[in-house]
């Protein structure tokens, strides 16, 4: 084995993610050496780190190179995912500062953990090797376990972290096992090399195909757990409910960004020709389709009868994972793979803005002791906090998928991709379940606007939280009115054989 030269490592393109990962260690030191009365500055350093990484990503955007001896890939897909993940991190920081303070948990390591997790998501988006996928997944998850349990002396929070940890460890094991099986079949963990050797295995009809298929199935399971699709979703409501709200907010988007990035990358780049018989579509398409359909149905229907906003948003996030899963299913068709990947990216961006916005408002009306997260607590919000209520209404409309909001843009592209891939029944289920989703989203609006009652004074709506709401609100509307902003950014995204082996 050749030892790659420093130039071959091509470290330049890894900079956005590496900077963030290294920056967190520096941040820990900064936090340790800052005098106590200056500790609040840690958050601002973290935000600055996110911004620097954001700018670095923009500088690299549109390139298509591999680095670290082919284990790392930096292309438009990576770039876009990085931007989404960093946006989510920035908004989460804004949400966390005052929340942690008022719940008595203002400790600097929170921000280091948040940035580490973000870096994990970014590495997942750039993984070109199954080993990197696994390591990045752990880098994404382990900080999340800790953050979920970040509220000391709160049983629910501890329970949430514990549950998430145990089940997460369980699912990571599947991912590793899947990678091992694929390695066994192909002798490599590099995605391009897997792609290159699959054709021979399929044509020869060798029994190695069993390892490949089981390996692919296990990878779907491992990543499916992270993005919370049915039947790997059961942890979601408990964990979301118990975790501190900013963590829930980040978890609901950050883990999905990383998970879907890796899922798309592995399935579309490495396994598109894993076919059985004379079909064009790979064997994983049907599974993904059924998972997507189940996710849509369970997520949307069960959300109807939730009375806690965080649980409702948990089921809603399951449902939205289903919509993105539709795009993954569409990406199985080699002719629509790239368009489907683009639609998933656009959906993720739309979902990030909207969902973080919704959580921001849930956080604003939450009490210091963690109560006040009932759907009834929204009653009359339009009278006490008209601006927040209007923003929440827009977020709810966006989650429903009403035109001129980001949610519609996302749904439009995903449905379009699904139709183009010929998955008409799945598209029908998608449209029908989004009709169903109107029921529970509109209920919030009804509570805010049309129910009698004194509105909550929204003590949590500090200026920083308001800024988070404004940013999410602007993103939601901009993406809804000018979808071209997102379509232009994703224009160059190609996953299928994106990097020459």
């Amino acid at each position: 084995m050749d030892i790659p030269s420093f130039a071959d490592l091509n470290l330049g393109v890894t900079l956005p993610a590496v900077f963030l990962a290294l920056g967190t260690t520096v941040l820990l030191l900064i936090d340790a050496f800052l005098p106590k009365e200056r500790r609040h500055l840690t958050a601002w350093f973290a935000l600055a780190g996110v911004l620097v990484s954001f700018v670095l990503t923009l500088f690299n955007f549109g390139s298509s190179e591999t680095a670290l001896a082919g284990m790392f890939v930096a292309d438009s897909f990576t770039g876009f995912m990085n931007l989404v993940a960093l946006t989510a991190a920035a908004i989460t920081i804004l949400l966390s500062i005052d929340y942690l303070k008022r719940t008595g948990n203002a400790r600097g390591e929170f921000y280091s953990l948040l940035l580490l997790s973000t870096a994990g998501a970014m590495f997942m988006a750039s993984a070109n090797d199954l080993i990197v996928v696994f390591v990045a997944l752990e880098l994404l998850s382990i900080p999340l376990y800790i953050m979920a349990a970040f509220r000391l002396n709160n049983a629910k929070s501890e329970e949430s972290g514990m549950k998430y940890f145990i089940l997460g460890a369980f699912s990571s094991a599947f991912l590793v096992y899947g990678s091992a099986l694929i390695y066994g079949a192909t002798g490599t963990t590099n995605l391009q090399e897997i792609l290159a050797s699959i054709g021979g295995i399929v044509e020869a009809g060798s029994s190695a195909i069993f390892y490949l298929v089981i390996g692919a199935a296990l990878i779907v399971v491992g990543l499916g757990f992270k993005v919370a699709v049915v039947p790997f979703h059961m942890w979601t409501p408990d964990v979301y409910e118990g975790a501190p709200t900013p963590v829930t907010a980040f978890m609901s988007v950050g883990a999905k960004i990383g998970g879907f990035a890796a899922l798309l990358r592995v399935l579309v780049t490495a396994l598109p020709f894993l076919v059985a018989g004379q079909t064009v579509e790979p064997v994983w398409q049907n599974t993904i389709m059924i998972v997507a359909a189940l996710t849509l149905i369970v997520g949307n229907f069960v959300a109807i009868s939730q009375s806690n906003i965080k649980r409702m948003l948990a089921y809603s996030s399951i449902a939205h994972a289903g919509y993105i899963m539709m795009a993954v299913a569409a990406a199985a068709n080699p002719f629509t793979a790239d368009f489907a990947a683009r639609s998933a990216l656009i959906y993720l961006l739309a979902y990030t803005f909207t969902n973080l916005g919704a959580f921001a408002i849930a956080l604003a009306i939450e009490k210091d002791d963690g109560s006040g997260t009932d759907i009834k607590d929204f009653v009359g919000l339009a009278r006490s906090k008209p601006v927040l209520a209007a923003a929440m209404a827009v977020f709810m409309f966006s989650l429903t998928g009403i035109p001129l909001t980001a949610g519609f843009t996302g749904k439009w592209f995903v449905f379009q991709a699904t139709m183009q891939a010929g998955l008409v029944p799945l598209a029908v289920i998608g449209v029908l379940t989004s009709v169903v989703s109107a029921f529970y989203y509109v209920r919030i609006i009804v509570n805010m606007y049309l129910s009698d009652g004194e509105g909550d004074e929204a003590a949590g709506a500090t200026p920083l939280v308001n800024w988070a709401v404004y940013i999410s609100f602007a993103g939601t509307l901009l993406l809804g009115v000018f979808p071209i902003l997102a379509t232009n950014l994703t224009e160059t995204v190609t996953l299928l054989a994106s990097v020459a082996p």
Partner: protein
Amino acid sequence: MQSLALIAPLIILLPSLGTIINFFWGPKLNERFSSLIGITASASTFVVWLVLFSYLNGNYYQPAIVDLPILDGWIRIPSVGLEIPWQQRIDTLSVTMMGFVTFVGTLIHIYASGYMHGDPRYARFFAYLNMFLAFMLILVSGNNLLMLFVGWEGVGLCSYLLVGFWFDKKHGVGLKNSNAARKAFVANRIGDFGMLMAIFLAFWTFGTLDLYKPTEVTNPHMMEALASGGGHGEEGAAPANGAAEEGGHGEEAPAGEEGAGDHTGSAAQLVSLASDLPIDQEGDHGEAAAEDHGESASEGHAGPVIAYTDNTHLTFSQLGIFAQAERLAQLGEGETLERGDGTTAGRMINFGAFELDIDTVITLITLFMLLGATGKSAQIPLFVWLPDAMAGPTPVSALIHAATMVTAGVYMMVRANSLFHLAEFSSLVVTIIGVLTALSAGYVAMGQFDIKKVLAYSTVSQLGFMVAAVGVGAYGAAMFHMITHAFFKALLFLGSGSVIHGVEHGHHHAHEHKHDDHGHDEHHAETFDPQDMRNMGGLRRKMPITYATYLIGTLALAGLYPFAGFWSKDEILADSWVAAIQDGKFAGFVALGLFVAAALTAFYMWRQIEMVFHGSPRTEAAEQASESVWSMTVPLVILAVLSLLGGFLNIPSGIGLFSFGLQGVFGEHTLSTWLEYSVVHLHVGAFQPLIAIVSLVLAVAAIILANRIYGSNKAINSEGLDPLEANPASRPIFALSNARLYWDEIYGRLFITPFNRTAAFLANVVDMAFLHDYFHDSVITKGFNGIGRLLSHPIDLGIIDGAVNGIGRLTRWISGGLRRTQAGYVRVYAVALLIGVVAVIVFMLLPVLQG
């Protein structure tokens, strides 16, 4: 002149600005300023409309497509050929709708400025009204189905906001309003599902969502008429003066009282556009026309220079969805045509797993569109929201629904006439739904006591007429009825508002006489319902202007000659008759059921007149009622005049003296001919004397019958019962009507309750009880124990023992930590995950094992 069309984006922008101002700064503005902003925004759209209208008249009714520079590529991904521009289409159909929306909208804004006086959220109301207008204009002016859908959803949203606007009213009224709003929203969402499916199917099939592409000729037939008439076509050498003859526009051209405008600019431009004219025309015609221009209205019909009269020069992918559909449908079995980008298209459309014939696809698209229309235009089965939405909330929101939003569905179907023309089966379904709606809503209107509920069901019924007209292919008649109906229904609604106002006033008056100290409505609104017709009677003398105008509205709605409703309803009936007898269409026969609906209309409207205005006052409130103020009566008078004259917009030919020779002023078929430039399959029907007489006789007979039953002070008997209710023979008929055919109850039973139950079942039983409890107890615990026994007894090995013990310890450790809450659930989750893993692996392996 052509550049005039470029003003089109303003028609959306202006009300949007109004919305923004009133929404964000509204609370800081005073009422006068808020209403000024709202009314100005609305009135200026009307001005923009006037410009667009004159643009069309100046350009031989040739459509224009206007791009908005900043949204040029609204949604565009070139690599997959997805391109949806933000384009507005200015043609006779969209301009008709825009005129209708801006005019009625402006009137409603003005009315609202007075009516909403004193409301704490005054500015907000205007923001909503402006937003409604903006979305409605996006809907009617969009050149692609996605824009139509944006507007479609937008008006749905605004209607939700407007219907629920008075959610905070006391005595349960607020709750009723918010329920009505939610009902409207949900019913419309179901319709939207249909629209979305239609859009996806259309995109899949045609690869575009554009209604027509910019270079496309909309109606080849009219273009030929224009070309041959305007410049004597290919004999081209005709002198310019010859072109100025009256016949120059072809037989069907409008008589042109508005015609002659500035044709020259456009003529010159069209010349420059057309270098290879199939119909040759030299530039000097334009110049000659320029000289004529302005001298006399009857001259100057120099005719346009027409580059193309049909689309044969365009490749398939250069066409919009309608023209593509027509080309595909004309193909024979196995034939293909060039798309223009190297690929070919045939009759069979590939949907991945299966293929469908183009006829089937068009039928599906149109059926989905129909589902959309049943939501917006309140047809069976989704009409249930409209009566609630109209009877409860502010009269203003009721009006804006009646007059504008509900026309969206009819507009969309008229717009898609090319598709409906190709889909015989869908057209039949459309007719059946329209007729059923017209009949059942008309029947229900017979048994209502709420003055506005009667009008609400009447609106549903009249929309049924329009939808049925679309079904039999009478697109012109549908649009005509839409316009006349807007006049007299607005009149009746405002009239009922005036009546309610008067009765309420009278009630206060009567009340104050007894108890001097309190006169606030909240105190006794519980007991007295000013909308209940049983509390009225004899208002003829108390409110003479309201009575007179209401009577005109009633006669117009009942379809009595010479009121507006007569002409439009007669055209629908005549066209169905022609479709049934001459063309032998089954849909035509179905549409003959509209005769019964027409008779019902006359009956329930006269019942209302008798109950409200005739006889003697039945309550003190009615006794004390007085005429409303002039700001309410003046609009009534204006609308009454329109209800009287509106029918002359589209006088049928062959009617002779009945029209008082007014066709000399208005021209014959003015509206139909005007619309024909953009509605390809519109046909101009002749007057059917027999039909006119039959429908007139039916209407008069129904009025006489209603007069016999309800007249001479018998409208409500001493026990407060309707005469039909009092008579045992007719009681069941009345009761069924009064109970609104049990539609809402049936929906409650069929959908709402099961829906709630399903959700609760999924949540409580499947997710909690089954997965958490039953599954846990019976499958996991027992299974676990079973496996454990199985393993430990025969193979009592240390390793297995250790593993089981290890798992047991781990579990205990976990549950110890989590004992306080939900101990043990993680196990359930883990095992569920495991089962999921097995399922996924098995499922993915299956094809490999089979293949």
